[in-house]
């Protein structure tokens, strides 16, 4: 079957970025509505494109989807939710406390954690309080990329535990102290999630090894959280209609091999397969095609108009190599191939005789896998949050714990268990890695968009904080943001695919970077079927649809563009 079977009222779609969670949740919701149900689709992704896929402008309350009776959707924008939360906390004191006091309160509510919790609050209201969604037969959550989703899902138990065991009172819950009042709501949310009669979790994956590995990791983590009602939805399965085309054959083989090598835990799950479609999945008509039983046969194509396509990576690498040293960051939505490209650039720079460190802040990445074997002169490192947290705790206890009595030390250890410790620890590691770019090349395969922005945002806060305190800070931290903003030191490469949603999201990323004072060095359009030269009818039609996006990127979005042909990962 093309879409997952639905046996519960609540459905979650989760998976690595770019696997098609939004498309599948919308197609599933549309099918349920067309069968006569009242269906609500909810997005909690800060980079959501639910509006675009459904063709209706959405808000934080259910909006009827034009052309689909019974289908409703809402978008929880965590930043907007955080703003409302901040106003609720600060607003009553305007005019009562001095302006400077109000400003310092507002600062405390501007961070990543407030955004995260405010979003979760909204999510808990929908899931934990039955009244808010009573009018709907089904509620479908199109959740954010995996790391974010998991944080969202693990938060209730983590925080419940934290609140319960916290004895110091004024602990690191800080601006979120109001959470305690929500304990019952969060407990109800967790109970709903883990109840197989109420909730189904759909793990969405492409038929590719890295996406399947990620799905397996999520499956394991969900099992630990007590969530057992899982489905696997394979999106974009492809088999060449007839053999002979190198690209189509490689894609067929890759899909076959990925499925054959699928982790056992995933293979046991009930599975649905949605075939690769010749067109994108924006709009209701395309969503209906996803649930169709037959793979649509593409019509014959007109001859290709004369085109000047952008070149490959070589010119970019040559220009970067000429600088002699610096930081290269590949950024973009998950699933666009940042890891593979970062590795390719690192290897190319190493081969030209440079000393190169390839590093990732993306816990989901497999940089090591992307570098086939050892390359002399190339160092591969990973910013591992768990290890960074452990190091940070040890450092703090060594530095501040020594002068404390047993009770003081216990209190400090308790605070170190708080959720903010990880953000701080990871951030320090990021600053350290960027510091390496003053001598050699550092290639950073950064985490998916939302998280990346938070990271840079954190850099900004650090920068401001650092300039006004006398605190004893490493040089690496003090010089981080100026370095990220220096085009001669840091070269940011935006990676995208030649499709509507990825280009749209990359544009948003570019705007976010502009706000942080960072101008990308180049865009890379990855995995192009057009550039691959395939003659397979379905793939060629998909390639043809890339043209307007490639032109848009190279003509109006980027000073430099590289176009990378689709390649089987084995040869990439």
């Amino acid at each position: 079957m093309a879409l997952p079977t639905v046996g519960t009222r609540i459905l979650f779609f989760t998976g690595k970025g770019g696997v098609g969670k939004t498309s599948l949740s919308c197609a599933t919701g549309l099918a349920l509505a067309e069968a006569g149900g009242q269906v609500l689709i909810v997005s909690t992704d800060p980079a959501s494109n639910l509006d675009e896929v459904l063709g209706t402008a959405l808000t934080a309350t259910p909006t009827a989807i034009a052309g689909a009776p019974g289908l409703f959707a809402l978008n929880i924008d965590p930043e907007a939710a955080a703003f409302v939360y901040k106003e609720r906390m600060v607003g009553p004191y305007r005019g009562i406390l001095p302006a400077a006091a109000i400003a310092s309160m507002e600062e405390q509510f501007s961070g990543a954690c407030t955004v995260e919790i405010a979003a979760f609050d909204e999510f808990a209201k929908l899931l934990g309080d039955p009244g808010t969604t009573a009018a709907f037969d089904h509620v479908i959550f199109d959740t954010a990329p995996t790391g974010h989703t998991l944080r969202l899902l693990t938060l209730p138990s983590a925080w419940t535990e934290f609140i319960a065991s916290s004895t110091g009172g004024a602990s690191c819950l800080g601006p979120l102290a109001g959470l305690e009042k929500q304990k019952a709501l969060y407990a109800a949310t967790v109970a709903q999630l883990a109840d197989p009669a109420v909730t189904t979790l759909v793990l969405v994956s492409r038929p590719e090894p890295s996406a399947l590995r990620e799905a397996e990791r999520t499956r394991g983590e969900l099992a630990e959280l007590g969530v057992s009602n899982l489905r696997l939805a394979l999106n974009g399965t492809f088999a060449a209609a007839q053999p002979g085309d190198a690209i189509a054959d490689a894609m067929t083989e890759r899909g076959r091999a990925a499925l054959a090598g699928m982790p056992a835990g995933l293979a046991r799950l009930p599975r649905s397969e949605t075939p690769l479609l010749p067109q994108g999945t924006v709009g209701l008509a395309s969503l209906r095609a996803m649930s169709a039983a037959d793979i649509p046969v593409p019509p014959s194509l007109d001859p290709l108009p004369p085109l000047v396509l952008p070149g490959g990576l070589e010119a970019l690498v040559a220009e970067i190599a000429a600088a002699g040293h610096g930081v290269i960051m590949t950024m973009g939505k998950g699933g666009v191939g940042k890891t593979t490209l970062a590795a390719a650039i690192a290897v190319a720079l190493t081969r030209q005789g440079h000393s190169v460190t390839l590093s990732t802040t993306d816990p989901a990445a497999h940089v090591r896998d992307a570098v086939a074997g050892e390359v002399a002169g190339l160092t591969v490192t990973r910013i591992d949050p768990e290890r960074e947290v452990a190091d940070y705790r040890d450092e703090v206890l060594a530095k501040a714990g020594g002068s404390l009595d047993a009770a003081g030390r216990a209190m400090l250890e308790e605070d170190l268990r708080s959720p903010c410790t990880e953000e701080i620890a990871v951030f320090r590691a990021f600053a350290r890695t960027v510091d390496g770019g003053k001598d050699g090349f550092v290639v950073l395969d950064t985490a998916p968009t939302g998280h990346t922005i938070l990271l840079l945002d954190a850099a900004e806060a650090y920068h401001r904080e650092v300039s006004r305190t006398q605190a004893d800070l490493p040089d690496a931290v003090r010089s981080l943001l100026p370095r990220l903003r220096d085009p001669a030191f840091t070269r940011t490469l935006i990676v995208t695919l030649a499709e509507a949603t990825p280009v749209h999201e990359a544009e948003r990323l570019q705007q976010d970077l502009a706000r942080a004072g960072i101008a990308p060095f180049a865009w890379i359009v990855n995995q192009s079927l057009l550039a691959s030269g395939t003659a397979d009818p379905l793939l060629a039609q998909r390639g043809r649809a890339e043209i307007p996006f490639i032109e848009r990127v190279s003509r109006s979005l980027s000073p430099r563009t590289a176009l990378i042909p689709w390649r089987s990962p084995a040869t990439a």
Partner: protein
Amino acid sequence: MTKLEVYDPAMCCSTGICGPEVDPALVAFAADLNWVAEQGIAVQRYNLGTEPQEFAANPAVIKEMEAGMDRLPIIAVDGHIVSTGVYLSRDQLAAKLGLVQPKPRIAVAAGGSCCSPKSGCC
């Protein structure tokens, strides 16, 4: 029962572990308050970020903040402000409260809020 009240600047945690660097003064102060409480003093600590109502309800505290936010932290004993802009040492706290504290300690100036505003912790 003697009452000790501390009006902290807006910050995310009172031990100071969530800033870019740990502020040892905050860590020590949190431990010292714990010790004070063990001596039978009623200790109340208010964070501007989370308990603004306590600041708003105290005209003397508002007056100090109007003079400058660097007056925080404000420490009050039984409703009377005894220090501003500094985290007192255990020794100084003991003196203000009339407690016996044999181990001498040195006061450290308050090092701003414990948590950088967008550090991801708040």
